[in-house]
């Protein structure tokens, strides 16, 4: 690759101010919210799909990879350019193109910040439902890449359930449309295959999403338990009884203390764990649900059951939850957020095992996660000044995922495989399953132009965690 020539040609496409190629600039784009890093050869900030298409064609000519990046809040190394090449930043493609009220759709560019869309339609009593904890920063393009979730996906589904169509730049550098505003377009569901493909099949340049009405009433409960085990028993009972709240989140004692210091909400400091249980719907429905949930919590010995008195208190409760990772940054120089899913009935035993794993590796553990989905986010705290810390964290992380595999779970509920978990894929998928995924990859991207080094296990990996040479970045206070 002739880097200087590539930069010159990219400048011809997007202009001088759309290309970043200094060492300083490239350093800033080597991160996401996780612990892997790698520098791109050049960063390009396109303003249109036509520019993206021209960039992809140039990448083809020069034989370099193309990696799309939203806000860099990802937690699996999804936008880390492990093989170098062109990093596409979407900061300048951040327009809400259209809010289509009659059709209950919005058309957005990939750089639109998730929360901005819901804010733009709130006065119509509408919302864009997926609400990852990073929603103040993360982009809808990144959400599409990772099939992002969030607390409220328990009742309403993840990103893929809310994306109806895409504009895509293909490996050939063509701009094509898949799906649309209407449902059930004839042919294979290419939209569904692209959402969550981690930028490995093409570059999305426009997204058609569903808008949904805001609920009539919301009731947010805080249930306090003496232990994580009791709280997870309550979760299992609630789901098992057929109550599906809008959100059902857990925070353990370590998290609570950090969050309390940050928000001064008045969380009980002697609790082992709390559940945030949000009920949405008609007033009549949520009253009945609240009674049911209360009874189920009492069955496992809830210590206290509080209801957020008003919108302010409710907002504060959620602020604590959504900024919990940041608050935990106060407790340690670095941490590693994991993302595994287990059947909800298995939560109590799995959480016990995770606690035991953290103890075995001498790591402090915090738990803050989407309990209603069985989507765990164990957070392992460490200090990279300790030379053994990173290796212990990675090994403990792999053990946690083995526990998930053993109970029929998944290595990721919303963060993606990325670089982080590619070598653990064989724990969950056999050779034939991987072969099926390779078939799909070859359909869209036969030359492996897009985001190479993601999802697929590196050759020879068989579920063992391979040590890597990359250094661990300091994340204190960061990481959404």
């Amino acid at each position, binding site marked *: 690759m002739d880097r200087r020539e590539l930069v010159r040609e990219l400048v011809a496409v997007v202009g001088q101010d759309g290309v970043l190629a200094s060492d300083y600039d490239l350093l800033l784009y080597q991160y996401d919210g996780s612990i892997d890093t790698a520098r791109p050869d050049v960063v390009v900030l396109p303003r249109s799909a036509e520019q993206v298409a021209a960039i992809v064609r140039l990448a083809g000519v020069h034989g370099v990879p193309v990696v799309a990046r939203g806000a860099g809040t990802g937690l699996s190394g999804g936008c880390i350019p492990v093989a170098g090449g062109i990093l596409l930043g979407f900061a300048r493609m951040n327009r809400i193109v259209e809010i*289509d009220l*009659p*059709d*209950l*759709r919005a058309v957005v560019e990939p750089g639109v910040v998730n929360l901005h869309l819901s804010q733009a339609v709130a006065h119509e*009593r509408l919302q864009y439902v997926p609400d990852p904890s990073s929603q103040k920063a993360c982009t809808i393009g990144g959400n599409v890449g990772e099939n992002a979730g969030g607390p409220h996906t328990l009742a309403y589904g993840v990103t*893929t359930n809310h994306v109806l*169509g895409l504009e895509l730049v293909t490996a050939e550098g*063509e701009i*094509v*449309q*898949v*799906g*649309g*505003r*209407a*449902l*059930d*377009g*004839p*042919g*294979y*569901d290419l*939209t*569904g*295959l692209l*959402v969550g*493909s981690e930028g490995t099949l093409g570059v999305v340049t426009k997204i058609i999403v569903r808008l949904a*009405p805001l609920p*009539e009433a919301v009731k947010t409960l805080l249930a306090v338990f003496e232990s994580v085990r009791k709280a997870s028993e309550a979760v*299992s009972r609630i*789901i098992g009884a*057929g109550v599906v709240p809008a959100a059902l989140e857990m925070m353990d004692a370590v998290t609570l203390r950090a969050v309390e210091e940050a928000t001064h909400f008045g969380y009980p400091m002697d609790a082992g764990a709390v559940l945030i249980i949000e009920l949405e*719907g*008609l007033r*009549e*429905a949520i009253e009945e649900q609240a009674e049911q949930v209360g009874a189920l919590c009492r069955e496992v010995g809830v210590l206290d059951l509080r209801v957020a008195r008003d919108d302010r208190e409710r907002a504060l409760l959620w602020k604590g939850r959504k900024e919990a990772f940041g608050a935990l940054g106060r407790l340690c120089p670095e941490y590693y957020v994991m993302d595994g*899913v*287990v*059947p*909800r*009935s298995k939560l109590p035993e799995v959480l016990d095992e995770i606690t035991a794993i953290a103890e075995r590796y001498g790591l402090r553990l915090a738990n803050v996660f989407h309990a209603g*989905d*069985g989507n765990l986010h164990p957070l392992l705290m460490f200090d990279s000044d300790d030379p053994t810390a990173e290796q212990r964290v990675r090994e403990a992380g792999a053990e946690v995922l083995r526990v998930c595999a053993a109970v*029929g*779970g*998944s290595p*990721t*509920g919303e*963060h993606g495989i990325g670089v982080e*978990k590619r070598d653990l*894929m064989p724990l*969950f*998928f056999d050779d*034939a399953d991987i*072969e*099926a995924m390779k078939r*799909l990859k070859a*359909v869209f991207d036969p030359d492996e132009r897009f985001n190479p080094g993601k*999802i697929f296990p590196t050759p020879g990996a068989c579920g063992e965690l391979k040590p890597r040479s990359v250094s661990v970045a300091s994340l204190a206070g960061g990481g959404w």
Partner: protein
Amino acid sequence: MSAATEAGVQPSLAPLADALGAACREPSPDELAALAIHGIRPRLVCVPQSVAEVSAALRVAGAAGLAIIPAGGLTQLGLGAPPRRSDVLLDLRALAAVVEYAPEDLTATVQAGMRLVDLRRLLAERGQFLPLNPPLPDDATVGGILATNAHGSWRARYGALRDLLIGSRVVHGDGLVSHSGGKVVKNVAGYDLNKAWVGSLGTLGVVVEATFKLQPLPAARGWSEAAFADVAAAVGAAGRLARAPLPYLGAELLTPRAAAAVGLAAEHLLVVEWGGPAAAVARCQREWPALAHAAEARRAGDRQAAPPTATWGSADEVVLRASLPLGHVVPLLAELESQWPAAGAVAQALTGTIRAAGPLELGPGAPLVRHLRGFATALGGWLVVERAPLALKEQVDVWGPPAGPLELMRRLKQAFDPAGIMNHGRFVGGL
């Protein structure tokens, strides 16, 4: 396909019959009427007893160039373009076991040959259900419903199969057995290949096992209805409903002809189904007349049950299915009423899916379908021919333009079914 088959010489069935043994038989003359698609009859029927047998069947068929028609409850066998050939009908109804039902996790894994009615019965014992109300649940199988993306009005509340299917085990056209997704409700590990199989009409291979996200049965259900002077007013009421945070399961709009065809008064009728706690359902029924009258309903009130629309349209009628963006349903319904007055239409008024059924003469039929398709496409939607005699299908493309580049779909078909044996020719663009 080999040169010999292109030239019209039928490939030998022997390799497949040898491989599967007792699972294969020659169809009896009585059976053939039900198994033929537009007169194209299978020469062999195979009823695999295991996933391994399905895999073996496809592997052998690929090598021998035998065209495979997968089948479940035969409720939608006529869907799509006529197949290029039919050598073997693969009857999947023997694979009907429950693999794992975890009521405490609200998930279930079943084999694809299980009938929806049996799955419903199993889940109802635990107060749960697969929230899907496609036509003919007594016969339709899980695999058939997946292949055809069948659904009904409940999609408004719960989504369709692409939203409910969380894991699948499939046999590709070349016999590869793979799984994707899993049995947890939230999962982004690897590509979401489940999406490839929903609505793919068996052209990529065979789904043998499916894991679904389940829902608790609503504590109470209830219906409301309202009659309107015209389509625009009825759709206007549905539009208000779509913007309201009410616990509807779905809503159907019947044109006067459709209402009459199912034995109701001939008027523009909107029927809403509610589901949730009894108090919530009661409130919706109580408040419905105000909402409907604000949208200029002639009358509005409760209803005792859903209108029997699931199977409407007699066998010799042509059925068209259109999907429109929600705000563009009115012009298409109006165009249908003026251009095809003999037809009735039922619209899923909260999701934009319209089914129109009526008698259609061959002469004007093809131009009419093309006109309506052009109309739907201009509105940002699609229109497919769901049921029609062969003569009409020969004159007009059943599917119309695909919702994405045909070249990518062609490559997907090639990647999963390299020998091109699966339902060849029945899907979009002749795939």
